[in-house]
């Protein structure tokens, strides 16, 4: 028996009294979610998250792809983020990033809420002058590993404190290929 699902049923932020906050953080390897009242301040949200995860007091909150930390007096509902409220929690204010491609390494500095997609765009297009199309066929891989973070991954979730630095290689995306007999 197949039961129909309302596609909006999972979007809890439609409830007027609450707002759904998606967040990534230092030391977390997944996207977490919390619901808070609309009148919640950034400071209160930070306290809620610190209690939930047993984080130290020096944790700072950032909006996705905004390098400066959030004003703690602002209400979460006033952050003005359209599709989904996406935040990041980290102790590093800035993270040193290097991206290597074809033997050349470029340095960057980002806030911890920078997405992998934003960093790749800067490096591939602005830094290494790839076309939009060519850039789309490349991916950032953490140097010395096979880890290729998703485009929506926040930089800070890959970096610890007090290191506050990471290195990537810009490499072509793999095409799925197998034994020829398996393709028939």
């Amino acid at each position, binding site marked *: 028996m197949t039961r129909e699902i309302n596609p909006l049923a999972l979007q809890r932020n439609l409830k007027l009294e609450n707002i759904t906050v*998606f967040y990534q953080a230092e030391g977390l390897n997944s996207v977490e979610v919390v619901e808070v009242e609309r009148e919640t301040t950034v400071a209160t949200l930070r306290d809620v998250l610190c209690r939930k995860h047993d984080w130290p007091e020096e944790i700072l909150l950032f909006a996705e792809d905004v390098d400066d930390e959030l004003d703690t007096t602002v209400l979460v509902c006033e952050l003005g983020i359209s599709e989904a409220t996406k935040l990041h929690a980290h102790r590093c204010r800035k993270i040193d990033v290097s991206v290597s491609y074809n033997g050349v390494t470029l340095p960057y500095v980002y806030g911890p809420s920078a997405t992998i997609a934003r960093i790749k765009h800067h490096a591939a297009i602005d830094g290494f002058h790839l076309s939009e199309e060519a850039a789309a*066929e490349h991916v950032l891989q953490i140097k010395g590993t096979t880890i290729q973070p998703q485009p929506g991954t926040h930089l800070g979730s890959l970096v610890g404190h007090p290191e506050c630095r990471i290195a990537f290689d810009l490499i072509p995306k*793999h095409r799925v290929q*197998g034994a020829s007999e398996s393709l028939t």
Partner: protein
Amino acid sequence: MAQDERAFLDHIEKGAFRLGVAEQKWRLEAIGWPHVYIGVRARDGRWFTLRFECTNYPIGLPTACLWDLERSARLAVEHWPKSRGGRVAAVFNPSWKEGTALYLPCDREAMLGHDAWPTTLPELIWRPIDGIAQYLEIVYELLNSYDYTPAAVSAP
């Protein structure tokens, strides 16, 4: 409720799946365990439904095919996403196993006989801890790549 279905329902309550829904990258359309129907949005705004078979989820890999909900049948080939000859064609290949699965290392049917994939394509190997959101992220990326081109006929 079976343990695998409960694990799946737990996973779609997690942030990664819910964020994808909020960003309209995918949407849960129906569940008829062990089958799950999830739509994934392509670059041109079209939605492609995947029918997942999720027995033993998440330890067991799922397998998925393109599906036509109105006809309750696999999606006709003329509606499949097309490729400019790159990565999309390799994954959405209607002539491979008659279109019953996507040619991806995170797919149960595709993984059979590909012992080298964990070494050559480690980023695409199924990760039970990430679950269905990992499979969906991979498909979403393909359907939003430059290699994706609309089907010859619009998806129903």
